[in-house]
């Protein structure tokens, strides 16, 4: 139980990725478009892509840590 709580406490640091994802997505979107609508649209898709990629890597690492 303590180990599980410790691992959950560690994952709290993942929240620090959120501002980075928002910032990177918006800047990336702004380098592809000129108007605010398409920028936000592109940024949203980029954020989903980055978040999904991170979630997959997180799941793989979590599975490895449980298995080993």
């Amino acid at each position, binding site marked *: 139980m303590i180990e599980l709580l410790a691992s959950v406490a560690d994952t709290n640091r993942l929240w620090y990725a959120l501002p980075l994802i928002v910032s*990177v997505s918006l800047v990336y979107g702004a380098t*592809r*478009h*000129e108007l605010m609508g398409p920028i936000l649209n592109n940024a949203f898709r980029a954020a989903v892509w980055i978040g999904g990629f991170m979630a997959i890597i997180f799941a793989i690492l979590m599975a490895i840590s449980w298995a080993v």
Partner: protein
Amino acid sequence: MPTEDGMPAADEMIEVDLRNPAVAAVWAWVWPGAGHIYQRRYAKGILFMVCILSTWFFGLGLGHGHVVYASWTKNDHRWQYFCQLGVGTPALPAIVESQRAKKDKEPLFGGWMAPPKQVFNYESPDDELSQWHLKYHSFFELGTLYTMIAGLLNVLAIYDAYGGPMVITSDEKSDKPPPDDQDDS
């Protein structure tokens, strides 16, 4: 980005007046977003300024001002600073502090952006860099990462100020060869 019927999207048909692109690029480096504001692209200028500077200062705060410093000594090659320098003026105090440290002068900004006094690359209470790592734990790494990414994002913004938005054309997006190529074969 092209629409489904192959027509370019509204923002691709806009002609962007880049004024003097070289001057805009320099401004974009000096202060994130300033190049776009010089080009009267105010919305993008403010967006770049807010995103890049908030990332930068958040990272700097996470590391209590120690994550950005310029040092190239025997035991401390701070290569991360080259990425952080992309953000322009906000990173320049580190060079001032580095020069002062070489002359054994006291830091100007309460130790912010000053290089560590001694780095031995082994655990020692006199090794200031290892003391920072000990004191700030993962926040030192997080702060370094945030400030590096802010600097690299500003490189993208500088490119945008110099060359305009990187529009994907329909030919680049499609795997099919253009119609002219098909006719030739």
